[in-house]
């Protein structure tokens, strides 16, 4: 492989370089996906634009409505972020099972999103939080919902020269919790066979579902939100029956493939199991947080 490496010192310069080189250029931050893709001959960029040193794109900020995560934030930072250890713990749980320690020390949240792997672990929890992405580019800035951003395996709505500058989501309502579960063949350095995130809000008594948001990874061309499963929970008693029904509906909504990692049949089965578990864990957490 050979390429020119560029190290812009500002976001504007990075966007300008990307505009200049067009499709022959790739942004690189942690490099944990880009380098593998280059090594395996899947991409051969003539220019790598290293954005890892750009100011202001790493870190987690509390905002008026919730949180803004910089795209250069590492998984290690997410794992250790104090504000995510409570109701937003699905973010921590997903971050903690990306690759291994070395990967999590360098891989970035933004890279995981724009790489658009159907198995990306960090995408489902963000989907359940209705995350939006701020994007800068040659045509100006824009904001897009994460669920509209990822359009297929390895595909996003990112235009030429565009760069994600922030991942934002609102705080959860009272009596809410999140959870994340992943299944693979081993406990680390593993690409999900299936992963599931859930965000559940119960009523003030803690017995009935007000709303639920679910997201399933590695069970379709993109991580998906099984809307019928989500809708089935509204107003239902929180418990095994409704959670199991939601799992079944989520499995029906998924469209997994069979590959060397698992069969479609097993993936669909895991979707049902993990959705039920994630919802159960959310309910336990809400109960545990109540005085």
């Amino acid at each position: 492989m050979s390429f020119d490496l560029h190290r812009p010192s500002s976001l504007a310069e990075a966007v300008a370089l990307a505009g200049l080189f067009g499709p022959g250029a790739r942004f690189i931050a942690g490099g944990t996906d880009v380098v593998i893709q280059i090594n395996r001959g899947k991409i051969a960029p003539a220019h790598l634009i290293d954005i890892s040193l750009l100011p202001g794109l790493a870190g987690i900020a509390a905002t008026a409505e919730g949180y803004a995560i910089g795209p250069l934030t590492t998984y290690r930072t997410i794992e250790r972020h104090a504000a995510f250890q409570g109701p937003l713990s699905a973010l921590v749980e997903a971050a903690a099972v990306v690759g291994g320690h070395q990967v999590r020390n360098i891989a970035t949240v933004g890279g995981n999103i724009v790489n658009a792997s159907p198995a990306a672990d960090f995408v489902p929890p963000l989907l359940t939080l209705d995350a939006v992405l701020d994007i800068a580019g040659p045509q100006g800035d824009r904001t897009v919902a994460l669920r509209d951003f990822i359009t297929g395996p390895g595909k996003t709505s990112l235009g030429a020269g565009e760069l994600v500058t922030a991942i934002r989501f609102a705080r959860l309502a009272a009596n809410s919790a999140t959870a994340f579960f992943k299944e693979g063949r081993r406990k680390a350095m593993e690409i999900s066979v299936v992963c599931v995130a859930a965000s559940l809000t119960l009523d003030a008594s803690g017995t009935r579902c007000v709303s639920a948001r679910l997201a399933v990874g590695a069970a379709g061309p993109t991580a998906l939100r099984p809307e019928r499963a989500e809708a089935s929970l509204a107003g239902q008693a929180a418990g095994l029956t409704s959670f199991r029904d939601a799992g079944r509906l989520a499995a029906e909504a998924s469209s997994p493939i069979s590959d060397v990692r698992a069969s479609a049949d097993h993936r669909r089965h895991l979707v049902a199991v993990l959705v039920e578990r994630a919802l159960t864990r959310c309910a336990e957490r809400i109960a545990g947080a109540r005085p």
Partner: protein
Amino acid sequence: MSARNFRVAGQRLPRMDGIGKVTGKHVYAADFTLAGMLFGKILRSTRAHALIRRLDTSRAAAMPGVRAVITAADIPAVRFGQAVRDTTVFALDRVLFMGHPIAAVAAVSLEIAVQALAAIDVDYEDLPAVFDMEAALKSAVLVHPEWATYKALPIIARSGNISGRARIKAGDVEAAFAGAHRVYEHRFTTALQHPGYTEPRAAVADWDANGNVTVWTGTQLPFDTQNTLAEILDLPSSRVRVIVPGIGGGFGGKLRIGVEHFAALLARKTARPVRVITTSEEELTHSYPRQATVVTLKTGVDRDGHLLARQGRIVLDCGAYAGSGPATAAIALQVLAGPYKTAALALESFAVYTNKGTSGSFRGPAGPMANFAVESQMDMIAADLGLDPLEIRLRNIVHEGDRGPSGEVLRAVSIEECLRRAAAAIGWDDRKPAPGRGKGIACGWWMTTGGSSGVYVKINPDGSATLVSGAVEIGTGAITGASQILAEELSLDLADISVTGVDTQAAPYDYGAQGSRTAFSVGNACLAAAADLRRQMFAIAAAQLDAPVEAMVLRDKHVVAGDKSISIAEVARISRLSGGGLIAHGTAISPSPAYDPGRLENHPLPAWNTPSFHAHAVDLSVDPDTGTVDIHRYVVAQDVGFAINPTYIEGQIEGGVAQGIGQALSEEIVYQDGKVMNANLTDYKMPTALDVPDIESILVECASVAGPYGAKGVGEPPCIEPPAAIANAIAAATGFWLPSLPMTAEKIARELRARRK
């Protein structure tokens, strides 16, 4: 010398190569660089079985930076191989598997070499292929239509796609089945498993002005590699020098020639040093992984669970070349008999060719596959008869003086102690402590491979000793262990021993780092060298001390006779003035035990030297929905004869169990229509630190007759029992056995769901 008085042997001393390895100073083969070195790459077939209609290297050869392109047409027409001489460096007119080398390129950079491969034009004409090992037994498609013309060891029985068939027979199996209380038949399958060494295969070759070649390589068998290179290069072996700078793991995957020949051939063509290193993809498509097997077992028992007869067959998939397959398949027969008394045996092995990459002899070759079958079935029989799995084993195990499957008399038999101690440690009384949780046990036996070892030992004028050995320190601590024995015998400290690097030009012969033999055999050679050195030193000391040799001993680095003494250093200095210095050549060979040849047919390893015995016990949970296995505790009770360095034996046990857990639960090179579907370390799943529990080692010391201080071979056994022990624990947790490795969560979940319906 009694074990209680040992100062160095048996002690937990740090290994001699440890500091260099943990600080990064140690030079491995892949680190080795020479000035002006070129980079070699291999063009590999993209078809599983095809005629090469056209092979045109002219575009590649003309590329700037390319120094040589070679194909079968450019090199001596030689077939090489261990049991069967069926292997060529490059495909001739036909490719036999996807990944088959077709050409090699040397270029001034790795990048140019890779680009040059893409500029080689190959036209193929596909041929019918055979991928399934059982189909290959009867297939009209022959991987080697010219098989009958190949040279092979006389003991090997071949026919068509069968590259080796062996048998062990005893008693009348059919009559015993007819009289049995019950007869059980089961079929088991095991998958291809990569040895998983950290360092890829790597070699640097350089020719001198006199036409001699030196190859720096991470091989386990430098002398075997030297011989094979000499054959391929058509040279006397003395003109090939193999140096092993260091080896980043091998586990049997670096026994046979890997990339050394490509480096040597390219270096000869270019007159420049050439380095060749494999990629992960090459490792997973063309290395020497543990062979896949199909094992069928038919076992007859009486109503008390005593084994009466066993008929067993193992079919082992060699891939496109026999490699170590014929011997590996034959070794499986001893494992199929197990450490059990069975009057009637009819065991048969088939090593078969298929159109897949050549496989090899990964740590404990055939051990885990055959043991998985035998020990799973023992538990199935126990369950059917209502017997405790430990109890059925205790009723059938061999004891001191019993005969093994080849009719050999078994000595230093410790299987009962291993079983009882492993069971006690895991808490066998509470075998199903919770729903979805269970404990399993499995036991087995294994050989200490023979082969000879020679060492030179020199006493230096400062009183230290230098050990010159052709044995490779493969990472087990074996050379540290042998040095501990040498230090013990010479009354030195371990720090007084230095070891030279492995160099076939200077070092005495060693059969190699294989078969759990290095510490055992090099240790014995050190004993012999030390005895010789004592004689030499005592003769000098006799004149100096005016004392009889018979009164002399070595103590605290001195020759001592009563109240007189002289330091070893002083004796060494005197020897330099008078006799050219103190040096000894120690040798060792383990003779094979006597056996009954009437029981064996075409078996290249008829009876096991100094067998070891072991039992593993595991406590695990199975997730009732996802099928995921979570191992809580893992216990190994292994008879090591004498623990030369307990720390490194425990290291061997922990590493072997980790590999066994991988084979049991996650590792598999997946072929589909001749193509490897997971030729990368993302989808080839070796266990991580999180998947392997703390492993509890119990070192049983039932001294052998032949080993140094009673030691037995240690390195291979720890990876033999894990698949069976885990299968049996899964069965305790779920009620069913999975007869197919790896026992993935998906397979377990499917079975759980099927049973729930």
